[in-house]
């Protein structure tokens, strides 16, 4: 084991040792005796004896010197014993880590952690797709080499929430019962330990940076509702005072909207803007004007915003599949019956038959079909008391063959055919579930122009929402929040055990440092108090006694 100094500059505290000697020189004995002459006493200068010739201060001086030495060595982080065992370091590479020197600080913290550890060390980069950069390396400089050229997170392409659960899972597979240290600026919620795949790994957070004033765009979504594209923009941040900033939306370089937003001192702000003519744009850029600590999160770019939103189609017929695939803003992912993705990045799950083998998708769902379809078609009748926030679909002359709703749970019925509810809406766990209880493959629908419109209206209804319907303002885009870009809002996440760089790099016992600091403080106070009556130096001051 070779001694290592975590903070070599702290050895500068050794300068207190000469100061201690100086203070002891200033120390005066308890009694000063005026003698006619020092002549006869000079023999004690020439004949030293152990009892008399000890250095002024004696054991007290030795204790003070040891205290000063202990303080300097302790503060420098001399490693007398190094903790062992495997260590996995998860380095947060999300966008906010690129602000205000946090990236350099994080890399330095990673190297400090590695320098004070014996045993295999792994490094995992945490972003949307966590990856292992160093795998169980016992080489001291491996992490330094790996992180030296690692670029700081920047630019709008670095979007999406970091997959901390995935990173922890990878780390747990590498360290087993070792330590996992997440080096991050903190806005991460610690997932349940079960999600990491290891219940025994010790997880702690090494926090980097301090909170800074910054506003950023954390979520943007362009959706179509009732035929009109609507842009939802969600911002979050904090500032020393409330301010007004401009939100600019450009489509293919053309300015569409310029809105002045009143931003509070801290919290979130969201806005819903109709964007007429945005269906055909290839690139939509949303930017927050002004300057703050992290410019990178002031811009959000949507490429082909109205196209390619992933929609899984479960158990649908070929005809229904062709119809859905015709919409350019939807990227239909047909699956077989009974096979279903539970992925969170799906914009919509259209389930035309079957049930999932695993958990239900977490996003909005559109159920089409049911059980026991009627033999004859019946006209679709919309409720007369539709909520005001729900655009009336119209759709006159649409005949459908209704089916029984499977597992209906107090749905909000929107339309009926005969005595059955055909279209219904319910909200569960903050997501919309729309049900069209009709036979999608009925022959009369194949020739109806209203049926595709009903289908599209139902898709838009499931994929969007209004606060009047859902109660909580942010619930409307909760699915999007899960993917929202992490930005510079650094409240400490929940569930963390914070660790500090000092505890990981200084193994000198804290009581020693405290005792050394107290001893030095006592010495300084003692020296200052005695300094009020300065001692005479040899030959420097005339005698004080002038005689009777």
């Amino acid at each position, binding site marked *: 084991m070779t001694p290592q100094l975590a903070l070599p500059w702290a050895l500068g505290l050794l300068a207190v040792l000469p100061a201690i000697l100086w203070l002891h020189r200033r120390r005066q004995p308890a009694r000063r*005796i005026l003698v006619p002459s020092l002549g006869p006493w000079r*023999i004690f200068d020439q004949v030293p004896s152990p009892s008399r010739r000890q250095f002024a201060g004696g054991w007290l001086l030795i204790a003070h010197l040891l205290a000063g030495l202990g303080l300097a060595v302790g503060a420098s982080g001399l490693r007398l014993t190094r903790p062992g065992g495997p260590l996995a370091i998860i380095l947060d590479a999300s966008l906010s880590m690129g602000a205000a020197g946090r990236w350099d600080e994080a890399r330095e913290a990673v190297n400090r952690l590695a320098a004070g550890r014996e045993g295999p060390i792994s490094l995992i980069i945490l972003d949307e797709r966590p990856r292992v950069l160093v795998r169980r390396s016992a080489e001291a400089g491996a992490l330094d080499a790996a992180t030296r050229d690692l670029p700081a997170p920047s630019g709008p392409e670095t979007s999406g929430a970091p997959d901390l659960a995935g990173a922890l899972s990878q780390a747990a597979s590498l360290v087993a019962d070792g330590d996992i240290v997440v080096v991050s600026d903190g806005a991460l919620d610690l997932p349940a330990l079960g999600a990491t795949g290891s219940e025994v790994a010790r997880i702690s957070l090494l926090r980097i940076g301090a909170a800074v004033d910054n506003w950023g765009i954390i979520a943007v979504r362009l959706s179509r509702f009732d035929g009109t594209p609507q842009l939802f923009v969600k911002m979050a941040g904090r500032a020393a005072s409330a301010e007004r900033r401009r939100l600019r939306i450009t489509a293919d370089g053309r300015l569409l909207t310029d809105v002045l937003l009143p931003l509070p001192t801290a919290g979130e702000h969201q806005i819903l803007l109709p964007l007429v003519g945005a269906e055909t744009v290839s690139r939509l850029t949303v930017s927050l004007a002004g300057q703050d600590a992290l410019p990178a999160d002031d811009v959000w770019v949507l490429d082909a915003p109205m196209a390619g939103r992933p929609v899984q189609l479960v158990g649908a017929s070929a005809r229904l599949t062709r119809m859905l695939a015709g919409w350019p803003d939807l990227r239909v992912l047909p699956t077989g019956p009974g096979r279903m993705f539970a992925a969170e990045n799906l914009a919509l799950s259209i389930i035309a038959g079957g049930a999932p083998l695993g958990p239900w998708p977490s996003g909005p769902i559109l159920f089409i079909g049911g059980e026991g379809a009627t033999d004859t078609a019946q006209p679709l009748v919309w409720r007369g008391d539709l909520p005001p926030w729900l655009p009336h679909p119209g759709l006159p002359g649409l005949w459908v063959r209704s089916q029984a709703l499977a597992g209906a749970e107090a749905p909000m019925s929107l339309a009926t055919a005969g005595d059955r509810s055909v279209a219904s809406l319910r909200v569960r766990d903050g997501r919309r579930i729309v049900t069209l209880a009709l036979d999608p493959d009925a022959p009369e629908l194949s020739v109806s122009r209203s049926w595709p419109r009903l289908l599209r209206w139902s898709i838009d209804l499931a994929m969007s929402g209004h606060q009047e319907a859902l109660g909580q303002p942010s619930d409307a885009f909760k699915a999007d929040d899960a993917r929202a870009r992490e930005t510079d809002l650094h409240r400490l996440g929940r569930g963390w055990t914070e660790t500090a760089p000092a505890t990981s790099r200084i193994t000198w016992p804290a009581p020693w440092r405290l005792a050394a600091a107290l001893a030095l403080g006592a010495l300084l106070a003692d020296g200052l108090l005695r300094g009020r009556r300065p001692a005479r130096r040899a030959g420097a001051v005339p005698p004080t006694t002038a005689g009777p």
Partner: protein
Amino acid sequence: MSAIDKAGSATNDDEGPLLEEATLRRLERLSLSVRSVSDAVGGRPGIRRVPAADFIDHRPYSPGDDRRHIDWHAAARHDGILVKVGRVPQAADVHLLIDRSPSVSAWPAKWRQLRRVAAALGWMALSGGDRLAAHAFPALDPRREGWSQAVGAGQARRWLAWLSTLRGAPSRRTLLSPAIRDLQSRSGPGGLLVILTDAWLDEDIDRVLAVRQGRWNLLLCTVLDRSEWDPEWSGPVMLQDSESGLTMELDLNPADQTAYRQQLLRRYEQIAALARSRGHIHVLISSDTPLETALVPYLQLQAALRR
């Protein structure tokens, strides 16, 4: 307790007259013995044979001799005129050099004892008809600050008064040989020189004792404070020189005190031996020694005094 303790500061300076009346009466019966005298004529028998009524011998008459001293009877028995010669009483020059440096004056008992000895010697000198001059050192202007030469018992009271008002003088260096040189340059051909000091000088005591022998008889009285001999303190102390201000840190134990006393005794023995080798007399007086028991018997032993 003051910031700086003084070793043995037990008495103050205002304890009454330096010499009591009984002591003065006793001293009047004493006279100083001077082994060599000057040409001056005074109240003390001289060794030089000159025409005198106190017959000792004859010598041939020479022009200028007092005719009253011609021994006509002897002239009748001899061929020539003879003159009776004898010893003529003469006055002696007594000079007192009084050390008033801080090493003496900062210790009241020591300072008082030194002045008591000076007072006694001066009183005896004046009572015996000698010429008395006193010089205090260190002095900015020795010619003005000293006691100018005086003769006769009538000056004795004034002498005591002058000593009573004598004060210590601050000094960082105590040098005695310049004072002696100044005294020798201003005074007559010789006399009795009495140095009253604690012998803590900033020069070699050998230089002080190198006074020309034959013309000057030197009496060195060294005064020691009781606390100098028996320091009452021990443990960690910082000693400070009363004159130079130099300091020294010590952790004293009883063995150290014994070693210190031995060193002090050795020093005074060396001074005494050196004085004897130069034909001078050395007297060591403690601050608490009664004057009669310390000064008079010793001077008697040295044949310096006679009743």
